[in-house]
Structures are given as structure tokens and as C-alpha cells.
């Protein structure tokens, strides 16, 4: 019986596959935070800031959205989308008849799918997988001094952009220092 096995080897950069990375300023007490100002950001989509706003509201915080100001919040939060790949494609090379194929799936960039230099080097290559990825970076800042209190970054893949955004936000919230308003 013909067996045709497919396997994955994602040609991702190390940055793309790194786990969630966080850092906290030593000695920071987040337990007194009641109001968070989500800073308007040209580098974060509305979907991302809204997802964080929902999470903070769920935890009982007062949430404001806008530019930096003085005294309206206990904490500033700044989110940035550092990489936005709405349509990541993977090549799945298939052998003709017979034999076990252990060719990897390889990521290719752009929308010029086939023939492409990558595909041309792989006979019978076929593109059949696509998904989305979001790289997200978040900072929590002390409003008066601008001191960085906490930072986190993650890259997350999803079947589409909605799933990738949801996954990246959820991943960061897992490591979030704000556990609930007092």
C-alpha cells in the first residue's frame, strides 16, 4: 500500500518560536493597582488593545484608553504588535507514487507562491497549509517616572488572525502580574 507520510519542519527564525518572555522589575508591588491606562498605540491593532481591555475589566480594574496623562491611572500599559503575518504559508512537498516521504513542510514568505525559488528547488512541492501569526510586546510603566515595571513578548500562531491575536494575548495574560483589582 502506498504510504505517504508528511512531517513538519518549520523554517522559523528563533525569535518566532521563542517561548513567552517576561521580565519584572524587582520589588514591584502590583497589588495596589486599581486603574490602568491603555496607551493609544500606532503599533497595536484595535483588536489587541480591546483584548487586553476586556481581560483587565474581567479582573476588576478600571480601564482608561488614551494618551499619556498625569494622575489618571496607577499604571500605564503599552502594547505593540512587532510582527503581523496574516497569511503565513507552508509548502508540503509530495512525492509521486510510492515511497515514504519525509520532506518537511517549509515556510515561505510572501504571496508569490509557486513557482518560487523555494518551491522550484523542491520537486512536486505543493502549498496547502496557511495560517497566521502575531508577535506581541507589552510594557507596564510607572506613570510618574516612566519606569518600566514589567515587559512581556510572545509570538503565537493561529488558524486565522483572530485566533492568532486571541492566542498571543492569552499567552501574555498567563504571565501577567496583574491578577485582580483589590
Amino acid at each position, binding site marked *: *500500500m*502506498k*504510504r*505517504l*507520510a*508528511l*512531517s*513538519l*519542519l*518549520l523554517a*522559523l527564525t*528563533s525569535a518566532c*518560536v*521563542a*517561548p*513567552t518572555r517576561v521580565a519584572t522589575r524587582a520589588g514591584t508591588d502590583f497589588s495596589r493597582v486599581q486603574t490602568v491606562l491603555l496607551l493609544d498605540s500606532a503599533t497595536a491593532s484595535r483588536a489587541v488593545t480591546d483584548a487586553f481591555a476586556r481581560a483587565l475589566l474581567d479582573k476588576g480594574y478600571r480601564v482608561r484608553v488614551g494618551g499619556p496623562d498625569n494622575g489618571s491611572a496607577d499604571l500605564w500599559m503599552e502594547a505593540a504588535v512587532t510582527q503581523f503575518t496574516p497569511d503565513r504559508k507552508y509548502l*508540503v512537498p*509530495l512525492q*509521486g*507514487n510510492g515511497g515514504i516521504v519525509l520532506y*518537511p*513542510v517549509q515556510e515561505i514568505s510572501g504571496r508569490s*507562491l*509557486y513557482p518560487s525559488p523555494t518551491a522550484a528547488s523542491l520537486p512536486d512541492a*505543493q*502549498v*496547502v*497549509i*496557511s*495560517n497566521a501569526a502575531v508577535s506581541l510586546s507589552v510594557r507596564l510603566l510607572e506613570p510618574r517616572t516612566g519606569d518600566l515595571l514589567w515587559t512581556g513578548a*510572545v*509570538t*503565537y*500562531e*493561529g*488558524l*486565522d488572525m483572530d*485566533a492568532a491575536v486571541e*492566542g498571543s494575548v*492569552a*499567552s501574555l495574560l*498567563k504571565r501577567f502580574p496583574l491578577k485582580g483589582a483589590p
Partner: protein
Amino acid sequence: MKRLISCIAIVAATALNAASSDLLKEGLRQANAGQTDQALATLRQAASADKGDAAAQTALGLVALQRQQYAEAQAALERALSLDPRSETALFALGLLFEKQRQPGAARSAWQRLAALTQSSDLREMAQRHLERLE
């Protein structure tokens, strides 16, 4: 007589496999050309012509995913996985699909299997990151 029947069965199976292989190639060509609607129809035929072909089931599952036919995609990918339990492609796609469908238990299972199976450190890290989020 039995031998004749066996021979006919073998010839028929070979013909079916060849037909399935041609359909698979054509379906993938269509998918590659962005004709995913036609590709889906062709790959349904390929998967139906040879139900034991993990590649045809996988290809059907992946193109169904692209067409957002999630129930069909899940069924095809699970069939592919039953035929080829080491299919990292099927596990990867199912992990993403189950997350999209908000089935964290099933997604965890797919990512756990993938993390345990793969030889790729990049892919293992990716699976672990998804597992961390789904905990």
C-alpha cells in the same frame, strides 16, 4: 477461482490507487493555483477513492481548513492521523483547528502528541508554547 478473484481485487485496488493518486495531484495543483473550491471537490474524490491514503486525507483536511469547512477538515485530518499516527502535519493542523473551535482539551492533546513526536526543536517549542497557553 479464488486466485482469479484475488487477482481481480489486486488489479482493482491498484487502479483505484492510481486514480486516487492522479486526483490527489490534480487537487493539489488546483489548491496551489488558488482554486480551492475546485481543489476541495477533487480531493474529496481522491480521499473517497482510496480511504487508506493518508496523504489524500491530509490534503483534503488542509484544503477544507482553507475553505473554513471545519467539520470536514477535522474528520479528514483525524482519518489521516488514524492512518498515519506519526503525521506531524495532521497534528499541527488539528492543534490550530481545535484552538479556533475553542476545544482546549482536544487542542492540548494534539500539541502534546506533536511535542512528544517531533524531532524538530523549533516545532517542539511551538507546541510547548501552545500547551503553556492552554494550561
